[in-house]
């Protein structure tokens, strides 16, 4: 495949920013850190570049959001699986947070981002896969910018929280 131009990084943000960085709660999302992680990384990255949210900025109508996560919301999925296995009802909020797109809609409506919404599970290194997908979206022409969000939740084998998210706002790079 012909080489696609490598995107240029406009801004970047990682959560947590330090050892005691509290994850901001996200109203409407319960139990799991997945959606708050996505929102925290997105807000940090977009604030660094745009400064202020805007639901009507024409320049953001072609900003895509791309979520890269190996398992998506594994905490919510485990919660639902347990409830179902025990024959219990699942709370309706879990329906609304059942897909990674949901929190993306939260981010896009707040910031006015009208480009494609894409979620992938990496087949290799998450950043490499995310940059490749972002490059394809930019070169193919449905987006002028891509907000790439890499998110993973706690590893149950690890000591302490390993929740982490990394957001990068990208634009089309120079043709090689």
């Amino acid at each position, binding site marked *: 495949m012909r080489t696609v131009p490598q995107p240029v990084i406009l801004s970047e943000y990682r959560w947590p920013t330090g050892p005691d960085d509290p994850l901001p709660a996200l109203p409407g999302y319960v139990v799991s850190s997945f959606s708050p992680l996505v929102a925290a990384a997105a807000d940090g990255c977009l604030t660094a570049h745009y400064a202020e949210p805007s639901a009507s900025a024409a320049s953001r109508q072609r900003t895509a959001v791309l979520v890269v996560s190996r398992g998506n919301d594994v905490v919510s999925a485990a919660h639902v699986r347990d409830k179902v296995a025990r024959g219990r009802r*699942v709370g309706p909020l879990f329906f609304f947070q059942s897909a990674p797109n949901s929190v993306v809609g939260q981010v*896009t409506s707040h910031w006015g981002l009208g480009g494609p919404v894409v979620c992938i599970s990496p087949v290799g290194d998450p950043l490499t896969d995310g940059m490749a997908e972002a490059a394809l979206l930019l070169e193919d022409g449905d987006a002028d910018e891509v907000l790439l969000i890499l998110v993973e939740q706690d590893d149950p084998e690890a000591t302490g929280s390993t929740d982490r998210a990394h957001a990068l706002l990208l634009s089309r790079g120079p043709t090689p």
Partner: protein
Amino acid sequence: MAEVTPVGIAGLGVLSALGRGPEPQLAAALSGAAAFGPIDRFDVSGRRVGIAATLGQVGTLTAELAEAIEAACADAGLTAGERAGSPLLLAVHGHPGASDCAAELADRAGLAGAGRVYTGACVSASTAVADAAAMIGRGLDRVVVAAGYLVEPDQFALFDSGQALSGDGAVRPFSSGRQGLLLGDGIAAVVLESTAAAAARGHRPATELIGWGRAGDAYHPCQPAPDGRGLARAIDAALQRADLSPHAIGYINANATGTPLSDTAEAAALHRSLGDAAARVPISSTKAVHGHALEASGLLELVLTVLSLQAGKLPVNAGYLGPDDSCELDVILASPRPVGTPYALSLNSAFGGANTALLVRAT
């Protein structure tokens, strides 16, 4: 927007509650014979609704995906060497083992490996198709796209708790009195190939993907924008890539899930994008017969669109009770219509305001 390379749909494999293989899909879609019935695959005694479209004898998701991929590659007549140069794009519900599943499927079929795994809910498969076309435009000869969802207890419980499921046992797209969606099994695979590569091996696909678009609503986490803004821009992008007028479109396979807000928003999107052509293009949603296959819906519905064009007949919109003033469209009722033009759109939308449009042409 990048220059578009013609992309042929060289082969396909498909399964749904309507049956295995292309023929039962087309037969049921044309006659409007819905496959909904009581679920016996798992316990639904604690749920509000106990109905879905499930196939009686079905293997595991991985086994059924493998079979569909094999069928698509065989239908396309791919040699071992041609398979070895073709990556797999897979659309499934996200879970930690999704990429391993893709790698296993690619290996079993002798493909070049897992290229991407799409987990973005109900636009997963259609996004994969758009990306495959973009990859072919950048020099790949062919890409295999596969997608799968088999009705299972966890997603069913979620849709039930969200009161998204229809309570009257039917899906009624664009209809008055529609109550919601019903889930359905869906497994599909297609071989997408540059028409130049197909010609080089003596093939001429009967259908081509000539346009695609992806755009967001920027409106709400789980409700569609009432004005259909994102879906309209996705359709605009597909038409622009194909350099096609809205008046040339002869059929729309709608996203229409039978959900009150969603179908109304889709109708608004069609009027916003297509103008006066919106009310004249024959339209139906085949979800009314096979149900909503979630991550696989975009590919299952693309396959049905392709089969319809090849058969020269357009599927009916099953479950219709009567007109809804918020959906002023030319809904195909009662009996299949003859194909009027070679061009058809397949539309999909998802949570988060995600929208895709795929535009195909019968050659």
